[in-house]
Every structure is written in structure tokens, then in C-alpha cells.
């Protein structure tokens, strides 16, 4: 079985976000780029499944839609353990466009399972995974917190409000995963980093996919007012404020 993991290239979580060109585009000067945290968890789980002798997963590939500046992040995915990386050479215009590109690749290069993180930490669209499923007419499961493949018997857990469901499905399918899918994201070891240089990083041209939305401008949030401090002994005062000032009680 082959698993394809979708990778987003995002600014490191501690980045101070700024915009340029009169707030119409993201200012990436000085930004450290990383694999989107949820995609990293997805990749880690895919590798765990490959290493588990109890199933037939034997190949893990990662795919990304973006420019050559993302290659360093893709090499990191290879260093973590992916067998091959594919980059669709295009500007990731929006989720529909990205999903459409990945679907075009899948039509020529089928995979049994596609993993995608629940959202990317930059645009928080939470859409690409389920869109890929629809483009491919595959079953898709979202909010996945565990994937098990004992003897290729597929069992997934999906989070529901206040609980979870255990589900069965069949390949090919898309799993949109979130926290819980694995414990810690894998860190590349020295050996992995050396081997990554020899692994294939294929660059493919973009397919014709429509762009349905566009970002027109950005806004930084208004400065928050100062925190009102209350004495540790004056709990009643806080309750009073929460009731009558904040009106949340």
C-alpha cells in the first residue's frame, strides 16, 4: 500500500506576522519555514504504519504545491523518512486550486491512502484534504485522531463533540488528521538528513485548475486593552465585573 501525505510549507509558529505592499501580501523577510505541524504529525503516522510489519504499507510520498523555495522543507520531509517528494510547481492560489493540482497528480499516480493535516497554520483553510477526496470521488474522513491498519483492515477514529467514533472504510480514501494521530512528530536523524539528498524530489508542472478566490488584503488585530488586575482576596469583585461589566456570567 502507498500513502501520499500532503505537505504545506508555513512560517514557524513564533513568527511575528507582518504584511507589505499596503497590507496586501505577507512579508516573508526573515521568516523561518517549517512543515505545517499537522502535516508533520500525518507524515509521522504514515511512517509508523510503514514500519509496522502488520500491514502492507511500503511507500510514503509527500506532495506540495508551491515554489522552489519550499524545497528545503520537502528535503526535511525526506530526511524524516518519506521515500519521495513531489512538488507541483505553482503558486498555491487557494485550497480548491491546491486540491485540484494534487488530484491531477493522483489521477496519473494512484495511492491507496491520502493523509492531510486538518488545517495549515498560515491560512487555516481546513479544506484541501476533503476537496481532494471530492475531486477524486473517494470517501473522506475528517477530524481523524487515529488510523490503524492491522492486516490492512482499516480502522479510523473520528472526533465528535464530546466523544469519538470508530469507523471502517476501504481504500482508496482520504484521512484528514488532527492531534492524537500520533504522539510526537518525528525529528530527522543525521542519517536521515544524509539519505535525503539521494531521494527523489520530482518537480511537476501545474495543471489547468481554476482559481475561485483571492486574498485582497490583510489586517492586524486592534491592540487589546490593558488587563484589569484584581486583588487575590477580592473574588467577589471579579464576579461582579464578570456579571455586570463583561456580561459573561
Amino acid at each position, binding site marked *: 500500500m502507498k500513502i501520499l501525505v500532503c505537505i504545506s510549507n508555513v512560517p514557524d509558529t513564533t513568527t511575528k506576522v507582518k504584511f507589505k505592499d499596503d497590507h496586501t501580501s505577507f512579508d516573508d523577510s526573515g521568516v523561518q519555514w517549517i512543515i505545517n505541524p*499537522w502535516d508533520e*504529525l500525518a507524515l509521522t503516522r504514515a511512517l509508523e504504519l510503514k514500519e509496522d510489519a502488520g500491514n502492507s504499507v511500503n511507500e510514503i510520498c509527500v506532495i506540495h504545491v508551491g515554489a522552489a523555495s519550499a524545497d528545503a522543507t520537502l528535503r526535511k520531509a525526506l530526511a524524516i523518512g518519506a521515500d519521495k517528494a513531489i512538488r507541483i510547481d505553482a503558486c498555491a492560489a487557494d485550497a480548491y486550486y491546491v486540491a485540484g493540482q494534487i488530484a491531477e497528480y493522483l489521477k496519473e499516480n494512484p495511492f491507496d491512502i491520502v493523509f492531510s493535516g486538518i488545517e495549515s497554520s498560515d491560512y487555516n483553510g481546513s479544506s484541501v484534504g476533503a476537496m481532494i477526496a471530492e475531486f477524486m470521488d473517494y470517501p473522506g474522513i475528517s477530524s481523524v485522531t487515529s488510523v490503524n491498519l492491522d492486516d490492512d483492515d482499516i480502522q479510523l477514529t473520528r472526533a465528535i463533540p464530546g466523544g469519538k467514533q470508530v*469507523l471502517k472504510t476501504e481504500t482508496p480514501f482520504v484521512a484528514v488528521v488532527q*492531534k492524537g494521530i500520533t504522539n510526537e512528530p518525528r525529528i530527522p536523524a543525521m542519517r536521515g538528513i544524509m539519505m535525503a539528498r539521494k531521494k527523489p524530489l520530482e518537480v511537476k508542472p501545474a495543471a489547468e485548475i*481554476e482559481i475561485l478566490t483571492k486574498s485582497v488584503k*490583510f489586517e*492586524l488585530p486592534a491592540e487589546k486593552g490593558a488587563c484589569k488586575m484584581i486583588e487575590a482576596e477580592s473574588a467577589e469583585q471579579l464576579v461582579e465585573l*464578570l456579571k455586570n461589566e463583561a456580561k*459573561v456570567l
Partner: protein
Amino acid sequence: MSVIAFAKNWNGKFKNSSYELVSYTKELANKLNTNLVVLSIGEVSNDELNTLGNYGADKVVTVNDPKLNTLTSRVYAKVISQLADKEGATVVVLSDNNSGKAIAPRVSVQLKAGMVAAVQEIPVSFNPFIVKKRVFSGKAFGHVQIDSEKKVLTIAKNCFGLVENPVDVAIEDFTPEVDASLFKVQVVEEEEQKNKVILSDADVVVSAGRGMRSPENWAPVEELAEVLGAATACSRPVSDEGWRGHEEHVGQTGKVIAPNLYIAAGISGAIQHVAGISRSKCIVAINTDPEAPIFSVADYGIVGDVMEVLPKLTEAIRNSKS
């Protein structure tokens, strides 16, 4: 031209998020000079469907089929698209929750409708159609223009509120064409916590972090939650250590919540935690360290020992009730 709102039900009942969706789409339909159709999928009683009328739903279409009680996103999306075609709808709106995240992207592809997730308010403009959403995990807002004729939106919890607008409800049955081959996902087992306030639904959340010092010290947190009818939550180190369950972890890689009141006890306020709570209407922080970053995002703060402050707060709330 109409607006379709997909109002999810859970075991035949709607939640506040369903009513917020109706309130939002009623306003949206008014602004677009068109009508609102609210869609319900699964077995829901007419009495329950009528509650949607309190928020302005004058037309409710129901697909009252037990086979559709459990979410299969592929199927739900097909039902929504078929209704959209039937009604000539140009805007489809869902709530940004687990089911919305699974269904909306599929509707977007089926209808070739540009989609924006977790929209914060009524569109900034209609011609061009521009909506505002949070980006960079809450650090900024983005204005996104949808150029396609059809549009799909999901709305962020607590972005609009519940707006009462009582109308009479006309209920219509709808029988979609759904091929059996689309049901490829089966539920084998389901586990739901009973008698506990669900974190993603809660209006009030009491959350605690490493400042509690030990898992044995959680009683004051739970007592405060109980007296407030609140859900309990925790920071990442606490769930990583196994002091509390993963489902309580609030933060960038845990749950992102938007309650009316978030009480953070013994939580320092790292960026990743703040990403999960910045949409709370009101944040109260209790910490021994006056320099803790949590105080720069909190509305009210107490510098003090959580083991002393929490019980005092519980007492004060009990007194204020009587």
C-alpha cells in the same frame, strides 16, 4: 439566488451553533435580497425543526431519512448540492465545526463554488463578494474575495451570536438521489461522554496548566467548573504529562475554542496556547507570576496562588447565585 444554511443536528437536536447559523444566514439573505432555506438531514421531529423559526428560518427543508442520521460527508455534501441546484442557491453556509469542515469543502468542489472557512462576520462587501476570516492562527485577519458565481462559507463559532427573529416555519420534505455506493464509511463504535459539558460547545471554560503543580490538585478546577456549568480544559504540557485527557487540550495543535468566558488558572500563556483561546469573548487569568504572557491577552487578571484563588472564586459565585 437563495441562501442555503445546513443546520446540523446531534441525535435529532439542534445546538446553539445551529441557531447562530440561522441568525447569520437570515441576515445574509436579507442583505442579498433573497430568501433563506434551512436544510436539516437525518431524523428530526417537526417540533425541533420549528425551533429554527425562532431565529428567522421561514423555510426548512428536511431529509428525514434514518440512513442519514450518521454523518457521511460525501453523502451530506451531495444532498446539499442537489438542494442548492433545486433552489437555485448561490450561497451555501455551514458552521465551522467538525462536520462543517468535512462537508463544506466537498460542496465547494461539487458546485465549483469558491469557499472561505471560519468567516468572522457578514461579508464586508457583496459586489465584489468579500469576507473576513482569521489567518496565521489568529494573529491577523484576511479579506478574501470569492469570484465564482456560487459560494460556500463556514462561519466561526460565536462570530455573530443568536438573533431572535420569530417567524412561522414552512417545513418541506426533500428526497435526494443518493447512490448506495457512496456510503463507504461505517460507524463501528461510538463513545460519548455523558454528564459532562462538551468543551467545543461550552459558553464558559475553566482551564488549568502546570501552575496547578500536580494532577492531584485538580479538585478546585473541577469545583469551579461545576458551579459555573462550565467545561474543563488544560494546556498542552498538562495533557502531554497525562495529567488530563487529550480532549481537554486547548491550543494551536489542540482545540481552538471561542467561549464567552475562559478562565486560565496556572497557565503562562505561550503563543501556541493563546492561538487556541484568542477568540474568547472574555479571558480571566490567575497566575503567581505578574509577568506571565497570559496577562497581556487577558481582560481580567489576578496575581495569586491558584489553590487559594480558585476556591474563593467558587465561593463568590455560589454566594452570588443565592
